[in-house]
């Protein structure tokens, strides 16, 4: 093999597949509490433009380690020749179902893969693992041990002492709780297993960083498109009988709300898919926030702006627009432009706080009328939608691909303060205005809006690290 490969091996049910799932960003890796879930070795390559940079192999757990070791130890050979005996074992037992799992895990190692031996240090150390570690030593390949903690107990101390006898490097890695930075740290450790792999693994670290940025950018673009589509959405309903006006209005409003929910749901699925969480457990047609209604006051207060914040943002934004006119006239307007802009901005925000959008009646030929709802007039709604989307994306970005439980969304009011500072609100309001004015809504505008979202996500990452 021209590229580095690593075989993730160990006793059954110690988290090998979880580790592979987390490192490969693949939530399709079969993980189960039932031992023996992994029955064949499977490759998870990091590929860039089709070229493999490195490969991870998920393998079945050792099943008959003592028997394999007993077979190997019948040959007395020098240390440098022990791997040939392992190769002989594989050759002689290739078709023997008794040693199927051992063959599957040893083959990639004999083909040149570095060994990553996984143990669960939430369970006490036991001498039964020594046969496995001894077999791996026979393979004569660079090796490291990864200490996982499936449960809360910690027996790392005794494990580290034992593992030190067999492995060059020992690292701790919890695939369920691991952050992006932990991922990078493990890759850096893997680079040290073999000098020849150093450059390739360093390249792969840069690639992962690039990939992480790409994913964040793509998710941000999806959110930007969602905001634009939601703000610009309109729906029509024919009005055959004016006596039914109120009823039709209510019907149209309900459809409009449902349409917005659907837009949001599709965007979230899109984000899931983009971040490689295709198998993330969530009900098919439910919103990710099942217990919070998009249009409830609770949602508004959690992610939207308060009236005070909205008025301040709208006033500032209006004043800036009016101020531009004052500037054009070199101040001869007596700054009436800024004042007028501020008044218009604030009154628009104040009046439009409660309603989502107006339903207007359109007259058509031959007396037929139709009702039109949209585009979005409510100044606060974009912040609600944006806040939810950023919250969800941030959760997914930090959700390990090894987790198989349903993602629990627990909203926190302090999140709003983290993402919507006064400066950010002013920046966002400019783009919300542009989205409302359809003619200015170009790809370039969406990209710029997405850039703000990326900045917010990066700030959230920094806050989490601190």
């Amino acid at each position, binding site marked *: 093999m021209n590229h580095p490969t690593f075989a993730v091996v160990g*006793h*059954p*049910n110690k988290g090998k597949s979880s580790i592979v799932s987390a*490192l*490969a*960003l*693949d939530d*399709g*890796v*079969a993980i*189960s*509490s*039932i*031992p*023996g*879930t*992994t*029955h064949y070795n*499977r*490759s*998870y*390559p*990091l*590929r*860039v*433009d*089709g070229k493999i940079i490195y490969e991870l192999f998920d393998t079945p*757990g*050792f*099943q*008959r*380690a*003592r*028997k394999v070791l*007993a077979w190997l130890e019948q040959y007395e050979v020098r240390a440098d020749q022990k791997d040939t005996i392992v190769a002989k074992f594989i050759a002689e037992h290739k078709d023997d179902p*008794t040693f199927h*799992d051992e063959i599957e895990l040893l083959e990639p190692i004999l083909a040149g893969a570095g060994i990553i031996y996984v143990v669960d240090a939430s*369970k006490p150390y*036991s*001498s*039964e693992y*020594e046969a496995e570690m001894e077999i791996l030593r026979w393979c004569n390949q660079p090796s490291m041990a990864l200490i996982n903690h499936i449960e809360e*107990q910690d027996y790392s101390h005794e494990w580290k002492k034992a593992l030190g006898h067999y492995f060059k490097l020992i690292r701790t890695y919890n695939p369920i709780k691991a952050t992006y930075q932990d991922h990078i740290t493990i890759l850096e450790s893997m680079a040290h297993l073999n000098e020849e792999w150093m450059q390739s693994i360093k390249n792969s670290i840069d*690639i992962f960083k*690039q*990939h992480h940025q*790409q994913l964040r950018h793509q998710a941000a673009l999806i959110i930007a498109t969602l905001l634009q589509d939601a703000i610009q959405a309109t729906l029509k309903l024919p009005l055959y009988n004016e006596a039914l006006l109120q009823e039709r209005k209510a019907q149209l409003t309900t459809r409009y709300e449902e349409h917005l929910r659907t837009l949001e749901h599709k965007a979230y699925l899109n984000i899931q898919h983009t971040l*490689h969480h295709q198998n993330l457990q969530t009900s098919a047609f439910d919103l990710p926030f099942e217990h919070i209604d998009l249009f409830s006051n609770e949602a508004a207060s959690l992610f939207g702006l308060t009236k005070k914040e909205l008025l301040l943002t709208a006033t500032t934004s209006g004043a800036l627009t009016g101020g531009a006119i004052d500037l054009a006239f070199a101040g001869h307007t007596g700054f009436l432009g800024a004042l007028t802009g501020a008044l218009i901005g604030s009154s628009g925000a104040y009046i439009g706080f409660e309603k989502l959008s107006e339903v207007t009646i359109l007259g058509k030929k031959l007396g037929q009328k139709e009702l039109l709802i949209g585009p979005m007039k409510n100044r606060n709604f974009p912040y609600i939608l944006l806040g939810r989307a950023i919250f969800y994306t941030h959760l997914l970005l930090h959700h390990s691909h090894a987790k198989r439980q349903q993602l629990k969304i627990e909203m926190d009011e302090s999140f709003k303060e983290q993402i919507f500072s006064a400066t950010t609100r002013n920046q966002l309001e400019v783009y919300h205005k542009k989205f409302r004015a359809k003619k200015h809504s*170009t*790809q*370039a505008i969406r990209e710029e809006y997405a850039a703000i979202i990326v900045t917010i996500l990066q700030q959230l990452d920094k806050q989490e690290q601190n």
Partner: protein
Amino acid sequence: MNIATYLKIYQLLKHDTTTQEQRRAFALQHHLDDRAPLQQLIAWLQYHKQELPRKDLASQYTHFDELLLLLTVLIAFAIGFGAAEVVLHYTGKEPVNIIHFLFISFLLPLFSMGLSLFAFIKPTFFSRFSLSSLIQKLLQRFEDKKLQTPFLEYPHIFQWLLIVRIHIGALWFALGILSALLLNVTTQDIAFSWSSTLSITPHALHQFLSTLALPWSWAIEQGVPSLSLIEQSHYFRLGNTISQTMLQQPQQLGQWWKFLALQTLFYAVFLRLILYGISRYKLHKTLQKTLLSLPEAQTLLHQLNTPIIQTQSPIQEQPLCIDDTIQHTPYKPAISTHYETILGYAFNTQELPLFAEVYHITAKTFKTIGGNNTLQEDDAIIQNLQGEIALFVKSWEVPTMDFFDTMEAITQKTPHITLYLIGYKTNNYKAKQEEQALWEKMLTHHNFTNVRIHR
């Protein structure tokens, strides 16, 4: 970048069905430089142009445009020529007034060039005129109805196209004037004069014309009308007679043609060429900018230049399933409190009496199997087994085939085995419910249904 290339790329992008992988492969194969997005698009066009229909948008437009251009050139030239003929019409009774000629060859072009300069600042200025809308509608006829119109969607392109065409027309108009002038001065003897109701002194006119002639006066002295020529050619339309001053040196009156030709060449043709060049350049830039801002182009460029990073396995894993439909044998609770042997699988021998005490059981002997034992050691122990056996196992460790091999060997010696799942000390050495369930499942799966599990 010309309009044909723009339209080809535009049409190609609208109909493109290539995948991200294909696009990226194309970029890598052709070593495209991501700092030159326009070159990337052109390379893309070169590679995929055979996918365009025979009568693509570009060929349709080019055909129409060539026709329109030819008409513009002919008409403009004819009008220029005709207008010059009118002002240069010399019957012999009256000299030709150069003011009239200067109007069409200097003032009119300068005025239109001034408008043009204004259009450079605000290209959409011309959309106010109905002629512009008419031409836009004409263009629409030749556009693919299935596509979004490449011009109406991006009006800046159309405006610059119009400006360029206007300059071509104006240029040929000026060439028509120049041709008429040269033809007339070659084929007939024309007496030029200047005449105006305004009180312009010859000296003032001389200064004005010398200023106009600055661009060529350093090279062609004869191209600057002298003061004496100006004085001599001042024509007063009084009594419809030629003045004596003019008749003194009639051959001088024809010398104006050099100035007239040179000023036409410079102000109507040369300056127009410059503006034409600038407008071509602006059209070129607008086409580039518009092309690069097309959403499809941006997507294509992004996919060409972004490495495809994949970390997942290409094949979906099919996990080994344990059949949950198999009925777990209801285990009878252990009734023995005394066993022949207590075995501990992967335990130290010293720990076994402690566990026995916890479960209130006794045994004649305590032995350890599995763990660090060799297979021969295990065999030796198993061979001597008889009677009721209690087997202590670690509840938190899932059983492997090594354990089941051992169980197989034990059950062949004696069928009376009771399994005790030993949990953590913190749980009073009792197994958790999920551990118990897992062990039961595994034992059933491996057909050890007769083995009793202590609950």
